[in-house]
């Protein structure tokens, strides 16, 4: 099968005017601007199969959103090649636009004051869809994403989770073959995040959409994507199946215990103590070797416990570790 | 007296911070001078063509415009917080002020200063100096008119802004009412008759901001002085009462959420 996305040595270099100090410097800068070059993306190559769900992750400023912009056609690269669904994105932006759907978690494409239905009606015209087929598809998607009862409400009056589901419906209305999701769960509570992840996974499985997702939330990546591409400083540092990544880097939980005693001793295989403040114990649990319940139970057994929380290690930390591991 | 001193101190701090970015200051103040200059040229052209409007000539108009520019500029430079009072109320900015000793209103007014308003002060002084043909007594009258007009203008703005204590989306309403008032105060007083005259002495009190005070320059009389000075005293009292009532309501937790 032909890949949905092929990327060959894609690069983007920004030129930034260098600011000079002093009044004279500022004046000089007007006539003789002095530029510094900044390589946001310094040559990345990868392919994505049709129907594959891939996460692109990396710290802020790593180049992941620049890559996504170039692949969706809204930014011209400084070098390299890319094909998305058979199009060169930056040369065939309009044609590609019919075939891709995009969701920006922090940017709405719906009119906040008008019923969602009105925004959808305009999107039908923007994507030039026949009325009947469109109405059928809207009905299906609204049912599937649980927003059928919300269509006459303005998004401005919906909860963030409801709004995000409407955004995803909006991006799927023209039946795109490829879905770009930029931070689709940002700001949502735990339940709403879980619902969005289920919807995206099921949608892609049902219609065979290729999904490319960026997120700061390790769970988004684990639960939605089969493969992870890690970008740092404009380069790909890791490209592998989520399963392998989970085994190596995500198979850990952080158990934080706050206790009356200044220190809590929990000695178990697969559990390491992290440095922390007094009365707070942070335990890193390797879930392949120890069960989280067992660790929590062992901590509670000490008595005098004020609070226990279980968290995933933050994504920044995971990426940092991946990077450190690769540097070795 | 300590309230006045604290207010003056806060006001000067706001003015200094508005002047801190020199480039922005000159750009904004200079831009405002150009903007005001355009209207002056237009009025000049108008009076060249039409000579008078209901007895008002160029010199009358220069006096009116000079006084209004000056009172607006001074209010906005030194007590510029009035401009977005409604937003400050709706945002809950007064919460922190309520925890401090002393009255809230002077603090709200003195915490902001608009750099562009220096352009209004400059334009007002230029107009009054060069086109208003003022005698020494006239200059004193103009000074009184500016003081009275500024007092009524600030009071009016406080009353409009205080609507935010009762109405949730008062921000644009307050701004529109201020714009209307300023707009109608920039026309020759002779055009207002019948119910437009009622309008400018009630809902949009341009009559007390510009028309009545400027009479002190155009045609000073005991009656004119009594009317203008009366307004200059009554309006601040009304504004203080209205704001105070709103503040009471706010403290009881009955104010609308922005």
């Amino acid at each position, binding site marked *: 099968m032909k890949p949905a996305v092929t990327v060959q040595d894609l690069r983007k270099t920004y030129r930034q005017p260098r600011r000079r100090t002093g009044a004279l410097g500022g004046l000089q800068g007007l006539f003789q601007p002095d530029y510094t070059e900044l390589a946001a993306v310094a040559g990345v190559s990868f392919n994505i199969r049709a129907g594959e769900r891939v996460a692109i992750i990396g710290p802020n400023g790593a180049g992941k959103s620049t890559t996504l912009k170039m692949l969706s056609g*809204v930014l011209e690269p400084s070098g390299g090649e890319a094909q998305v669904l058979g199009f060169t994105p930056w040369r065939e*932006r309009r044609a590609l636009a019919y075939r891709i759907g995009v969701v920006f978690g922090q940017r709405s494409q719906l009119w906040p004051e008008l019923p969602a239905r*009105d925004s959808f009606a*305009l999107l039908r015209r923007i994507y030039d869809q026949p009325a009947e087929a469109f109405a059928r598809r809207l009905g299906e998607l609204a049912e599937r994403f649980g927003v059928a009862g919300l269509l006459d409400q303005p998004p401005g009056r919906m909860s963030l989770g409801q709004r995000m589901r409407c955004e995803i419906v909006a991006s799927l209305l023209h039946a795109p073959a490829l879905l770009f999701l930029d931070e689709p769960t940002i700001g949502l509570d735990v339940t709403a995040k879980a619902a969005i992840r289920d919807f995206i996974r099921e949608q892609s499985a049902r219609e065979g959409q290729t999904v490319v997702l960026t997120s700061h939330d390790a769970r988004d990546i684990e639960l939605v994507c089969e493969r992870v591409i890690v970008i740092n400083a404009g380069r790909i540092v890791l490209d592998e199946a989520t399963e392998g990544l989970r085994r190596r880097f995500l198979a850990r939980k952080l158990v934080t215990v706050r206790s009356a005693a200044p220190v809590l001793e929990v000695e178990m295989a697969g559990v390491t103590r992290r440095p922390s403040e007094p009365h707070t114990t942070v335990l890193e649990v390797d879930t392949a070797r120890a069960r989280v319940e067992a660790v929590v139970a062992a901590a509670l057994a000490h008595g005098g416990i004020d609070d226990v929380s279980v968290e995933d290690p933050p994504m920044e930390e995971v990426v940092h570790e991946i990077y450190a591991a690769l540097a070795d | 007296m300590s309230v006045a001193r604290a207010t003056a101190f806060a006001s000067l701090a706001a003015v200094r911070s508005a002047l801190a970015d020199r480039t922005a200051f000159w750009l904004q103040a200079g*831009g405002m001078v150009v903007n005001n200059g355009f209207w002056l040229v237009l009025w000049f052209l108008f009076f060249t*063509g039409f000579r008078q*409007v209901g007895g008002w000539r160029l010199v009358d108009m220069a006096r009116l415009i000079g006084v209004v520019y000056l009172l607006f500029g001074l209010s906005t430079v030194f007590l510029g917080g009035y401009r977005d009072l409604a937003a400050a109320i709706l945002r809950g900015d007064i919460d922190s002020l309520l925890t401090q000793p002393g009255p809230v209103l002077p603090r709200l007014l003195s915490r902001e200063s608009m750099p562009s308003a220096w352009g209004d002060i400059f334009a007002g002084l230029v107009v009054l100096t060069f086109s208003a043909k003022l005698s020494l007594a006239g200059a004193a009258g103009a000074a009184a008119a500016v003081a009275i007009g500024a007092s009524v203008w600030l009071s009016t703005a406080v009353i409009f802004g205080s609507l935010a204590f009762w109405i949730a989306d008062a921000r644009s309403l307050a701004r529109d009412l201020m714009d209307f008032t300023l707009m109608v105060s920039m026309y*020759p007083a002779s055009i207002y008759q019948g119910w437009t005259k009622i309008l400018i002495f009630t809902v949009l009190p341009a009559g007390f901001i510009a028309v009545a005070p400027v009479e002190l320059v155009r045609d000073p009389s005991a009656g004119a002085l009594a009317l203008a000075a009366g307004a200059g005293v009554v309006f601040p009292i009304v504004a203080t009462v209205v704001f105070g009532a709103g503040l009471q309501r706010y403290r009881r937790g009955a104010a609308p959420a922005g």
Partner: protein
Amino acid sequence: MRSTPPSLTKAARLWVREALADLRAAAGAFRLGLTGAFAAWPALAGRVAFYAVCLMVLGAFWGKVGASRLPGTLATRLPPGGLGPYVGVTEWIIISAVSVQLRFEDEVRSGALEARLLRPRSWALLLIAEAAGGSAARMIAIAPAGFVLLVMTGLLPGPQALVRTALLAVGGAALTLLVYALVGLSAFWVRRVLPAMLIAQKLMFLLGGLFAPISLYRGWLHVLAFASPFAAQLGFPGQAILSMSWGGFAHALAAQAAWVTALAVMVALAARAGVAKTLREGV
């Protein structure tokens, strides 16, 4: 037809198809702007009130100017009923215009533009069409107020003049939006559109004859005003309610068509250059 290479006819068909889709999308955006403006009816009512206050003041002003026809002044050249109806029309156009330049500025500066570029339609076209819908709603809401004022002051012109005025006002509204759009597109290069807007406002005021007909001007100012797009935008529609022959109407309409075309081309070129800059440099 036979002699045309098949690829060329295919390209032409594709072009026509895309153009029609653009128009349909613009119509959709127009409708959205229209319904959106009516849905926010308190703001609409406020705008009608603003119009009424403006006209009361300006009507009183011109009424006073016309009242004493001082010999040797321009007042002798004023129409018998004063300039109230004229200002009523120019203000109708200006107060109805949606500040689309702020939308352009906001989308360019916040980067929201990028999300719009992911769609297969022209971003600028959709923004202008939506603003046109909002402006249309405002014109419809304000029209009865203007009509009532005309009746109350006894200055209601004949039906033919009303039709001519309404048609030219639509053209004037279109020109206003195009001027605002050009101002808004300056955001690609100067970030803030306010300076450009202040200049545009002064030009509308002076060359468009927002408050006084440009027919009263003399000399080079008269020539300049008539040669500018601002006369077609405000001056001609305002003149239409005072006195205008069918010949004058035809001339005004032709001037509007020419300026709409010219400004639309400028907007399209500026939007294209701005988008190209964004595609190259990012936001």
